[in-house]
């Protein structure tokens, strides 16, 4: 097909791409100069620049077909998505980097001011942030227990038990609830110290003044439990799917060889489940790192920051205190930590993903 494209068509395609790109670049430059005050005239908003970007994106896509014919049409399957990601993820990230190294309090009449590494220094000596990061380590380690519980439940639901279908649905229910609903239903109602049913039960059982969010350790544990209650079903369902994919012949062969149930689990089920387990744990870590809603609703990070997650702290810094520059820096720093840790974890887990021999 390629040989059918005429020179004229090729010329048209290139003109479209470069022509629209020049218009876009000119507008970006023109508006930037106006914004920094070097140019008197300019548009009141960046909207014309956005239109130029959309025009360029359209021309770029269109030109693919003009330039490459059938091959270009195939490119259209991916190119709009790439452009969308660039405009909605990459560009904002670059913009965020600019904000992260600025002092930008929305109440300041001076607006955004570049402040170099001041935010880094502030973060370094900010006990609230490091405390939140430390809490995230605790919260993340709780995934080990969540995994064990999820595996146990998955094994149970994979076994031939009565009412298996009912329990499968029942155990999945918490996952269907919004964490906000969970925090009000459990944290604010059932665990309410005086009138909550769980508190009443605790008093019946001899605990005089039940307090579920009074001490740092207790409050942190309760947050962990509420979060676990919501997300254990996610791990469970992934593990269950994995369990059902294990060929029955393997267990039958083990039975023939006279293996004990423990032996069968440890030598067959667990190793075969490793790839699924690692995936489930990694996904769960990603979910855990976003933990904020339950904390914001139930404890606001208290008592004394004991339950603060990084996200809930940034939420207060950013929203309640309009401290956009510092808040953005904290978020970017957190993103960098997440990327590094997750990369290491994925590399390390690659080894485990392969079943043992």
């Amino acid at each position: 097909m390629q040989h059918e494209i005429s020179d004229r068509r090729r010329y048209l395609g290139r003109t479209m791409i470069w022509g629209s790109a020049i218009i876009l670049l000119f507008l970006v430059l023109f508006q930037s100069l106006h914004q920094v005050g070097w140019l008197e005239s300019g548009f009141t908003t960046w909207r014309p620049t956005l239109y130029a970007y959309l025009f360029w994106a359209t021309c770029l896509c269109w030109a693919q077909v003009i330039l490459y014919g059938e091959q270009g049409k195939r490119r259209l399957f991916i190119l709009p998505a790439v452009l969308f990601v660039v405009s909605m993820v990459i560009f904002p990230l670059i913009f965020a980097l600019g904000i992260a190294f600025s002092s930008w309090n929305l109440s300041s009449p001076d607006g955004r001011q570049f402040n170099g590494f001041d935010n880094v220094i502030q973060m370094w000596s900010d006990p609230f942030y490091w405390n939140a990061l430390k809490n995230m380590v605790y919260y993340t380690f709780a995934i080990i227990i969540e995994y064990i519980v999820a595996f146990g439940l998955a094994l149970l639901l994979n076994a031939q038990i009565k009412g298996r279908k009912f329990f499968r649905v029942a155990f999945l229910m918490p996952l269907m609830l919004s964490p906000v609903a969970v925090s009000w239903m459990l944290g604010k109602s059932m665990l309410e110290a005086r009138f909550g049913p769980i508190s009443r039960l605790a008093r019946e059982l001899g605990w005089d003044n039940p307090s579920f969010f009074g001490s740092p350790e207790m409050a942190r544990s309760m947050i962990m439990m509420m979060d676990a209650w919501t997300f254990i079903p996610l791990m469970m369902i992934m593990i269950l799917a994995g369990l059902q994919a294990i060929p029955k012949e393997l267990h039958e062969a083990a039975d023939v060889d006279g293996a004990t149930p423990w032996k069968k689990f440890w030598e067959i089920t667990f190793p075969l489940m490793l790839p699924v387990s690692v995936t489930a744990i990694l996904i769960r870590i990603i979910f855990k790192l976003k933990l904020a809603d339950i904390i914001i609703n139930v404890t606001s990070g208290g008592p004394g920051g004991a339950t603060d997650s990084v996200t809930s702290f940034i939420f207060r810094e950013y929203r309640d205190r309009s401290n956009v520059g510092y808040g953005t820096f904290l978020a970017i720093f957190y993103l960098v930590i997440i990327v590094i840790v997750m990369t290491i974890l994925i590399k390390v887990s690659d080894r485990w993903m392969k079943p043992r021999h």
Partner: protein
Amino acid sequence: MKLELYNQIVKSGLTRRSMLKGTASVGALAAMGGSMPAFAGGGVRAEIMKIPGVGMGSPGDPEWQKVGALCMGPVKERVAEGEFKGVELTFMGLNNQNLHNFLFRGFLKPWEEYTGAKINWIDLAQADYNPRLQQSIATKTVDFDIIEMGAPFEGDTAGQGLLNEMPAWVKDQIEYDDLVGYLQPPVGTWDGKAYRINIDGDCHTFCYRKDYFGAGSITGRMNPPNTWQEVNQISKDVVGKTDPLTGLPAHGFLDPLKGWGGFGMYFLTDRAGPYVKHPSDPAFLFDIDTMKPRINNPGWVQAIQDVMDLIAIEGAYPADQINADPGTTGFQQFLAGTGSMLTWWGDIGSNARTSDTSVIGDVVGFSAIPGSDRVYNHNKGAWENTYNEAPNNAYLGWGVYVTNRVEGDSKKRKAAWSAAAHIGGKDLSLWTSAYPSGFQPYRNSHFNYDEWEAAGYDRAFVEDYLGSNLDTYNHPNSLNEPRIPGIFQYYSVAEDELAKGFAGQYGSAQETADAIAVAWEKITDQIGRDSQIALYKASMGL
């Protein structure tokens, strides 16, 4: 009037006439709170009070439009019919409880029909309000001509030159001087220029359980406390005793120990006010000339220490108090029969008798916030052993403002101010005080006892209930917070540090207060110290 109050009255099927009969009317009148104005004035005032009539169902858009139409007199005196034809205005406000903007729409419908102007609406939930406003300001995308706003945000808006000065004719139209004392300038003004049309009033009052006081009561005291020293002593005295109403452990004062998006700071301020607000000094949070925080002076430290003293005594607070925000102390604890003393806005008073979840309706009493038997004189750096009162006008109520988007277009400017003046009008405010609107009385004319009496109300009740509000509003030493940019940032960070202090992470009240002071200094430096000082002075009318 608060919505729940009105619903309760309507639910009970009372008409105004039957309400005034017999002893049942006493409870109903109490439930009406301090908001029922006179019917006796005749003319428009009497007429709007019949829309729809108490007990005739909850008013909706048709009623709001009728009230708006009847109150058009002052507008028509100043604006010719069709004068604003072609003008489009944008109004940003709240949609709480389906009130606020929804009412304004109805009130302004006849105004739009008469003047020919068109209003576009931006409705916001309370939680979205502050971020939306701050982002509009910071990104220079103010896209509204009229805004419903609390006075604490005046620093962020008027302080940055975003508001339009109120024309003299508007002051005449709304009878500006009718405002209660604390809403008089400097509130609503910057550098001597007026910007705010008031539509609401706010203050904290002291709520207490009457069954904790009197002969044979568990406190052994005949009367509720007059000072914070007494409040703390009572809180200590009732530890280990049984609540006379619920049979559960008795508790004294309910301090919210958890933050509430900055609003929790008002509650520590209730305690600190009488310690730190010296009658000879208008400031209590910052030094006016330097913006140096006073939060770590001995007066504030004493207030924090008072709370820490109670935390240290097991049983002084209910379990999990460290996790109780003001919503919890007010609605889950006090109204549910836990604890015996509390400071709050008017909501607790109205809910106590009307909410289904309240068990304290028959035993709740109200007074102004307690004083102190000593006051810290910051300028002299010494305590003075004299009785001092400093009630807290927390948040200062809602107002309507016009932004400077209307500048340069005299027709649009007049239209915006005319619309704002219509919803802040004297007669219309009478109606919003009496019917569900989300707004409280805020004019001296709302407290005209003769009018109330002439309308058939019990004078003693009216004087007692409305009088306590009026005393706070007009108190010469009341606390009016600095309307500087970012005031809620200061409150928010203070909440975080207080939470650490209350959780025992700082060595003392002084250390906690010092940490807040350091954080406040950082905020001041970040926003800009010189501009903060200038704006602070402007907000104080200095």
